[in-house]
């Protein structure tokens, strides 16, 4: 595979300072600060209408920010129109020029900058996205996945300092999405340009990006590496939007030790103080979160076999569904109802059927603590579709 980027090309950092966008009385993006490090694969994740696409368009120069500045490699580009910015965009619907063939679509940016001999670069770029033999086709003669690759090639050939991707995989079916995710990741590795990727698909964001910013209602809720966001969400929105979380409302009993001690119904729970982002005061409430796959399910008859030092909750299975890799259970308990538990299908206990009395237990170190003042349901019902 040939690399088109000149050796040593690396992207530039993008710095947004106090940037916001309002349309009349509607605020699409609340003032936000954001720094995207050079050469990183950065994802803006959120449900539709959360302001992620607007943020991207402000970086591209397609939308003028109401306040704040956009800096590329330390240079303020806020006032520059799109055609003067060293960034390129892969549009959601690709926006390929229907009157030009693939070759001319890819060459478009080079020609606009007055580069005469484009053939070598275009051929190399088409090779990079594996479309060399389709150069003379029209966009509408290509499949969705091929069009998507043309859109990437058309943007990348300009060696932008930053490549912006606006839901680039939204129109593809699941299998092709998976393939293109790896493809984009490979291309980013090869060219080393800063990628900013907007998506509503949390799995896509986590698979592809080094850093994910979760956006909600025009604000960034949390920013970090995918594993950090998943393991220690700081808000109920992030906890629910990124995967599934069990959130249990509990009373704080003691905050003196390394572990905060809590009580939910008649059950005592422990939570490492370092994994609690909310301030915990004795007598007040706290949300204890635990991911479904971190919980082990043991039949009540074997309750004695559960090791000491684990958080344990008793309950009754209300539903179970077999998904192949795992079995998903819903458990009602006095502490919380509708707890979900994913058990890997290694040694299946045939007694674990709806109606069975069970003990749920987990390593306290896997729990996380959240401020109980938040909406416990935030982020659960956003089945995100389409653009943000």
């Amino acid at each position, binding site marked *: 595979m040939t690399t088109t980027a000149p050796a040593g090309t690396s992207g530039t950092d993008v710095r947004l300072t106090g940037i916001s966008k309002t349309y009349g009385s509607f605020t699409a993006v609340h003032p936000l600060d954001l720094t995207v490090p050079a050469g990183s694969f950065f994802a803006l994740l959120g449900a539709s209408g959360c302001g992620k696409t607007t943020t991207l368009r402000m970086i591209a120069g397609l939308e003028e920010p109401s306040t704040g500045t956009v800096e590329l490699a330390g240079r303020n580009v806020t006032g520059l129109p799109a055609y003067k910015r060293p960034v390129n965009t892969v*549009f959601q619907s690709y926006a390929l020029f229907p009157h030009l063939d693939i070759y001319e679509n890819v060459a*478009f940016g080079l020609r606009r900058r007055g580069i005469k001999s484009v053939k070598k670069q275009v051929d190399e770029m088409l090779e990079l996205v594996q479309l060399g033999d389709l150069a003379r086709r029209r966009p509408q003669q290509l499949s969705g996945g091929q069009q998507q690759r043309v859109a990437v090639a058309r943007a990348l050939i300009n060696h932008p300092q930053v490549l912006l991707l606006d839901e680039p995989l939204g129109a593809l079916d699941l299998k092709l999405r998976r393939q293109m995710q790896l493809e984009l990741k490979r291309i980013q590795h090869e060219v080393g340009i800063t990628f900013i990727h907007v998506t509503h698909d949390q799995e896509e964001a986590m698979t592809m990006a080094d850093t994910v910013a979760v956006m909600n209602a025009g604000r960034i809720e949390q920013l970090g590496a995918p594993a950090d966001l998943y393991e220690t969400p700081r808000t109920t929105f992030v906890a629910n939007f990124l995967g599934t979380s069990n959130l249990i409302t509990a009373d704080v009993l003691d905050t003196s030790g390394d572990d905060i001690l809590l009580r939910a119904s008649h059950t005592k729970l422990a939570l490492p103080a370092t994994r609690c982002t909310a301030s915990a005061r004795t007598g007040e409430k706290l949300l204890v979160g635990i991911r479904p796959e971190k919980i082990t399910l043991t039949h009540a008859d074997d309750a004695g076999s559960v090791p000491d030092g684990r958080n344990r909750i008793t309950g009754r299975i209300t539903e179970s569904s077999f998904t192949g890799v795992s079995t998903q259970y819903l458990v009602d308990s006095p502490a919380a109802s509708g707890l979900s538990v994913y058990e890997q299908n290694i040694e299946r206990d045939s007694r674990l059927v709806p109606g069975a009395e069970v003990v749920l237990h987990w390593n306290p170190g896997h729990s996380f603590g959240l401020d109980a003042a938040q909406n416990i349901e935030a982020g659960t019902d956003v089945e995100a579709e389409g653009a943000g």
Partner: protein
Amino acid sequence: MTLTTTTGEPAVSDGATARRKKLVPYWLLIPGILWLLVFFAAPLVYQASTSLQTGSLEEGFKLTWHFGTYADALGEYYPQFLRSIGYATAATVLCLLLGYPLAYLIAFRAGRWRNLLMVLVIAPFFTSFLIRTLAWKTILSDGGIVVSTLGSLHVLGLTDALGLTEGHRVLATPLAVVCGLTYNFLPFMILPLYSSLERIDSRLHEAAGDLYARPLTTFRKVTFPLSMPGVVAGTLLTFIPAAGDYINAELLGSTDQKMIGNVIQSQFLRVLDYPTAAALSFILMAAILALVTLYIRKSGTEELV
């Protein structure tokens, strides 16, 4: 994987129903075909035969396959032919220059005024073609506001030098006829232009801007090429009727501005030389067909979406 293939339709037990369904498109074509036969094909054949007849009104015309009429007609009236093509071309170019910016404005910038502006474009159709052309006679009348303004701006001197006007008159000059043609056929230019501009995805403009195209380059490289179907349709809808028009030359021109339409009209209705009139009609039709074919080939619209 083996699956029993099932057709989308319910099991066809009734063969007659299926056959009737197949015939529906043909039944639907009948009114259109009848219309074309009665009002297009039949007159065409009749005129073709007329053009090859000889004789006089008193003795009656007989079909003698006299092709010489064509040569005679062309030899005598070629100035009017050339003038028709010239005026129609000028009017078409003017319509394009006036109509494109307007269609562009309505399609991309008008916002909620869009529908109102479209109504205004077709508003002239609410009055008769004849009345509108007569109105231009008043507008361009000697000593009227238009003429005196143009005169005081020394525009008339310039157009006079170019042979478009004569002295202090606009009426009864080529300029008047071209103005009338332009005015009357402008909506036929704007409507197809608008509909092809309006279909252009605005994200293509953004994409062009994102790829370093300045606004003017975006227009040249993206907007205009994508509006070519509208340009071609608009120019044809303007040029073809303008080339055959005789009302504008009749009302706004003098004998020096006679177009081929005027000749055909007078041959048919005043001179009563039916073969010559019919032959002129066929020559006009052939000329337009040839020009249009050449034009469509050149503009390469068959490749456009």
